[in-house]
């Protein structure tokens, strides 16, 4: 029984460990890129060639730190928030063809399921901000909810466009159809839907220029203000897991997944999503933060109408190419 359980859970442990390792070094990568952009060096002395032990030191330190909790907070929800965020952002990876032999990718609705699961993160964020009984956390999660819910619409629509053209909601078919030409190169629709996807993915991942829920100048550090130690580490890691998930998603839907120029392999997905992630980091360190009303107005009055028009065009294209 126990042996069976072990052999069943081995791939799960494997993938979670790999994922956490990758994500820990993504934090390191971001610090390095940020330093490079500000003509600094970045982590260097902790682990001699370029601070390679830095993620380990950070994680161990956060683990050994005091676990403080405001006395007026709701302790059940307060502890539940970070765990929920971490579990949800990790379990979304079960559906990504990160390992190509992953059985889930050929499920007929795998893309749909991925979106459904990853949009549950907001529950954890809201719960943690609400239960910390801190005004900054509360304002932060209210912003967060407004932002994430409204940007979900263009995100989903921009992902629907390739699905309509390909005619399937499963990752397996989407990857299969990009064998010869990546979706980003399909004229017109590919580029526009990628731009919409990129903007709303930044907003979904709470990144600059849309990181309103963590605006240090206004809200201390947003919904994580009251969290210390390992719980903060969970939030910190979950943010990067989510971001990496978005990068993997983008490289699968728009950049052909494992289909490289010469070879087809899992490693190609990782490389592509690392490039995608680097691009997101570039955006983060070169832009300013916009106001919440600008953010929402931009979404509801520009992004959503445009994405609906593009969706309509995609439908018409499909109709005329299939049925005429």
């Amino acid at each position, binding site marked *: 029984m126990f042996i069976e359980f072990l052999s069943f859970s081995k791939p799960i442990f494997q993938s979670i460990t790999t994922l956490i390792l990758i994500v820990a070094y993504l934090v390191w990568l971001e610090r390095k890129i940020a330093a490079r952009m500000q003509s600094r060096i970045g*982590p260097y002395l902790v682990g001699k060639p370029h*601070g390679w032990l830095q993620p380990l030191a950070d994680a*161990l330190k956060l683990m050994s730190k*005091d676990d403080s909790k405001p006395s007026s907070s709701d302790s059940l929800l307060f502890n539940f928030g970070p765990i929920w965020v971490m579990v949800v952002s990790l379990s979304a990876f079960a559906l990504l063809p990160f390992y190509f032999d992953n059985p889930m990718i050929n499920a007929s609705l795998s893309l749909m399921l991925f979106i459904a699961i990853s949009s549950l993160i907001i529950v954890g964020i809201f719960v943690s901000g609400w239960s910390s009984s801190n005004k900054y956390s509360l304002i932060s999660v209210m912003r967060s909810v407004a932002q994430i819910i409204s940007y979900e619409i263009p995100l989903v629509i921009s992902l629907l466009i390739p699905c309509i053209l390909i005619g399937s909601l499963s990752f397996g078919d989407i990857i299969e159809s990009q064998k010869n030409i990546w979706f980003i190169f399909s004229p017109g629709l590919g580029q526009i839907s990628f731009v919409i996807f990129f903007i709303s993915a930044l907003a979904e991942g709470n990144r600059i220029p849309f990181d309103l829920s963590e605006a240090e100048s206004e809200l201390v*550090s947003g919904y994580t*203000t009251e969290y210390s130690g390992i719980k903060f580490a969970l939030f910190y890691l979950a943010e990067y897991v989510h971001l990496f998930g978005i990068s993997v998603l983008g490289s699968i839907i728009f950049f052909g997944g494992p289909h490289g120029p010469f070879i087809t392999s899992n490693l190609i997905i990782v490389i592509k999503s690392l490039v995608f992630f680097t691009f997101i980091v570039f955006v983060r360190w070169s832009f300013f933060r916009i106001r919440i009303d600008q953010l929402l107005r931009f979404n509801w009055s520009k992004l959503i109408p445009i994405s609906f028009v593009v969706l309509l065009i995609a439908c018409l294209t499909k109709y005329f190419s299939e049925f005429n």
Partner: protein
Amino acid sequence: MGNVEKSLKDIGSFTKLPGANLFTTSTTKLFNWAQKSSLWPLSFGLACCAIEMMATFASRYDLDRLGMITRASPRQSDLMIIAGTVTIKMAERIKTLYDQMASPKWVIAAGSCAISGDHYRHIYSVVPGVDWVIPVDVYVPGCPPRPEDFIEGIMELQNLISNGKISPTYNVSTGGKNQIDIKKTKTKKQKNLIENKFINKNELLNYASQYKNKDFLYLKFITATDFEEGLTLTYVISNTKLGEDMEFHVNLGNSLEIDSLSELFVGADWQEREIYDLFGISFSGHPNLKRIMMPEDWIGHPLKKEYDMDTHNSPYRPTREEYESWKTKL
């Protein structure tokens, strides 16, 4: 492999076995190493030293090399760098922030002001050394300490952490780095002062509004001086179009009341509050005459000659006796 071995050396030790390397360490050592390698400071600064601290974080000196990134929330930060003059009003905030930090937490007092109050230590509103408020681990002297000194202080703190002991008084010697290049500074001459005279207290409003009609729209400052005979107020207003200033003084004598100029010049509002706060002159007609700098429950007006230094009401200032004994100890 050589590099890896080298970088793991200060965490634990390697043992060579046939066909393998064995790496051993103790949890204390491991966690001490982790804590010293990722000291996240709370991002706050108090005075001029903070500018130097920011320079230490920025590109040329780059504290991120040591694994330090600033955190905005005290819950997630391990290190508090007191960079600047600690005033009594700020001391309470510092105490709150320190209490909010999750342990293990360390404090570096950077700059002479944070260590002892330096040249401001005799001033009524300054705490003579932040160790009146919170325990300090490392002192970094200098006014301000150079970024190298900051980094040296942080490295001392890292040594303390990895040795597992923290002593409350620990000095970093700067090794003769404090050579100051004294340059002669030229005092600016005031060019366009067209008038400078004493006026009567009753004609102040008339006089000011008369000049306001002549395009003297900008009130540069109001200040008060306590001469032995009584208080004198000085006003400077200027015509920004022509670049002309005019200055007038009012002798208050024994009275402590004068008309407020805040109706004529909006900028007078805060300056009159400041004068009320520090000298106790009340301005009749002022919309909101409250203390602006000192805490609201402060007793007395500290810039007056008759103000007694011992009438403090803060736990962070020593009494006169404590102060004298402490000074002789030094």
